[in-house]
């Protein structure tokens, strides 16, 4: 009974408490959007946005673009694990039904990620069609504190935004200070291996690999030419051998399992030295997948992996703190150890 009446009650309430339109905010694309004073329900247009809203104010989220998998569920707060699946409105693979979007009666739609003309026009169209204000927030790593403050302010939880933004700023500052003056030669040369054969990668400058540079590494997938579109590409084995990365990061289990015994990868410095690192992906990926706030956790981890002498933080403490602060979960020892073992797997395991 409780389950059935709750949405109806919400619906009635929302009809009674009509939003008052009183504020105009400017989003990252420079669009001026009028939004209600109280934003109680937010539709996240894609996975990155759902993480942003979940982190800042989980009670506003109308649903997950894609339902959490079983292994991801323990790392989400119990109240929000079972939110409905709402599909994606923009980005790759548009799977949302506008009527489903409307059914959850959101006061606001938020998209978080790259900003370009396609996304701007999509946002304008959906906004015109549904009458629901649609905000585009720049998902670049360096924009994280700004994005957190902006969204927290819109959702009326400025103090929370400040707390999260200062965590991000503190982390960025710590990295900048520690890395200041470190010449390029003494930074790790990193290849991000994606896909089951490890031969997909993100070019330097793409949103998918920003974390490598931010954590002080050098992305070896660098076409040099500034005109090249930065995104996910396929690389050949020969290119990998030619650039010979000394560090590899991945989240693909199939690739991680086989890389150690694969004769082609065996000659790569990173594999020979045992410097292939396997990122956890629960509830969200640490280094990417999707490119959102979840990367802050990966930043903490990767900087320690890249420069063990400079960043001597304890991964257990930092993981517990991050999951509490950002994901609203108190990790129990089993769940925490699963993540730590995941991130610290070595070839012998």
């Amino acid at each position, binding site marked *: 009974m409780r389950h059935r009446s709750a949405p109806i009650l919400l619906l009635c309430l929302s009809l009674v408490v009509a939003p008052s339109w009183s504020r105009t905010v400017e989003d990252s694309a420079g669009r001026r959007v009028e939004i209600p004073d109280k934003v109680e329900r937010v539709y996240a247009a894609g*996975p990155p946005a759902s993480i942003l809203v979940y982190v800042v104010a989980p009670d506003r989220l109308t649903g997950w673009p*894609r339902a959490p998998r079983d292994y991801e569920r323990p790392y989400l707060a119990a109240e929000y694990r079972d939110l409905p699946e709402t599909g*994606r409105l923009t*980005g*790759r*693979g548009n*799977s949302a039904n506008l009527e489903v979007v409307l059914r959850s009666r959101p006061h606001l739609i938020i998209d978080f990620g790259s900003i370009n003309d396609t996304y701007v026009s999509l946002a304008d169209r959906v906004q015109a069609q549904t009458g629901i204000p649609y905000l585009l927030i720049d998902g670049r790593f360096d924009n994280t504190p700004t994005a957190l403050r902006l969204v927290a302010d819109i959702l009326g939880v400025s103090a929370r935004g400040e707390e999260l933004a200062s965590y991000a700023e503190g982390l960025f500052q710590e990295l900048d200070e520690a890395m200041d003056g470190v010449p390029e030669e003494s930074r790790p040369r990193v290849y991000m291996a*994606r*896909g*089951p*054969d490890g*031969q*997909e990668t993100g*070019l330097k400058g793409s949103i*998918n690999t920003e974390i490598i540079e931010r954590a002080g590494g050098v992305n070896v*997938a660098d*076409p*040099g*030419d500034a005109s*090249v579109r930065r995104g*996910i*590409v*396929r*690389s*050949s*084995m*020969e*290119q990998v*051998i*030619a650039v*010979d990365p000394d560090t590899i990061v991945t*989240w*693909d*289990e*199939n690739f991680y*399992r*086989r890389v150690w015994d694969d*004769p*082609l990868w065996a*000659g790569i410095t990173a594999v020979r030295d045992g410097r292939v690192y396997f990122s956890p992906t629960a509830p969200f*990926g640490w280094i*990417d*997948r*999707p*490119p959102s706030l979840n990367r802050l956790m990966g930043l903490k981890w990767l900087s320690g992996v890249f420069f063990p002498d400079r960043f001597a933080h304890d991964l257990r403490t930092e993981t517990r703190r991050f999951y509490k602060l950002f994901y609203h979960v108190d990790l129990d020892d089993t769940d925490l150890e699963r993540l730590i073992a995941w991130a610290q797997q070595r070839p012998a395991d």
Partner: protein
Amino acid sequence: MGAAATGRLTATVWLGLLAGLVTLLAFAAALIGPFAVSPGQVVAAIGRRLAGVTDPASQQIDTVLFAVRLPRIAAALLVGAALSAAGAVYQGLFRNPLVSPDILGVSTGAGLGAVLGIFLSLPVFAIQGLAFVGGLATVALVYLVANAVRGHEPTLVLVLAGVVLGALAGACISLMKILADPYDQLPAITFWLLGSLASIRADDVWTAAPAVIIGLVPLVLLRWRVNLLSLGDDEAAALGVDPGRLRILLVAAATLMTASVVAIAGVVGWVGLVIPHIARLIVGPNFDRLLPTAMLLGAAYMLVVDTLARTIAETETPLGVLTAFIGAPVFVWLLASGRRSW
């Protein structure tokens, strides 16, 4: 000397030229690549390999040459030859120059198998296995459906069944693309469906080559009867050939060849359509000469395309893109020139 003998002589000359061209291209391709290896180093590496000595200092050169570049060249030759042979068979079988090896849904079926493998996050070997099985299963299903319908025009019913089931498999692929993880699996699916030899290793060639050869055997043995089949079912039957049984055997052989190369290379379009066509322009429709010419031409074409794919940019260019960019204009030109040497 009669016209037939002259034709055979021309064909022999062409075959010799093509074989020389393929060898030359293979040597050239072995020297090209992002990892700089000089011709001297190549010769030295081959010498070391033949003498059985290892040199720790040039271990990376050996890896690049013997584990990356040569398997890839071998795979390009294999894929080009197999797709062109299959295309030549299908075009003769359906008496239609617009037919490609995909006509009965083998590529779409293989695509569906591979996409399923990627969707389930399986290892690479399992993805290839599913692609192979998917290709074979789709064509088998097409055959069963066509047999159940039993129309007056067996080839027409077969093609229609292929189109229908191909569309169905295509729809399943689209469905899985929607359900797949957009940050993880979707790029992998897209890359696979565009075809690439980027992740080829020697094992893949050793797995696919026997299957291709098994498929090739009936084609070579039955090369004369393929000519009879292209006269039409009634004429073929009058000449003592059972068109139904011959067709099933040839379709099975061509499908086996196509499925085994698609499993390792992904979906590579155009080769099986354009190459047999060009081969027919060169040596005429006689399958006896058409088959080897198409195979050599296809091997050479695929090698050139794949060498471009791995060298024109810092990253890989999908094969499907290049074959279409080169294949489409050639095909239009062929259509426009309107030669019906068929």
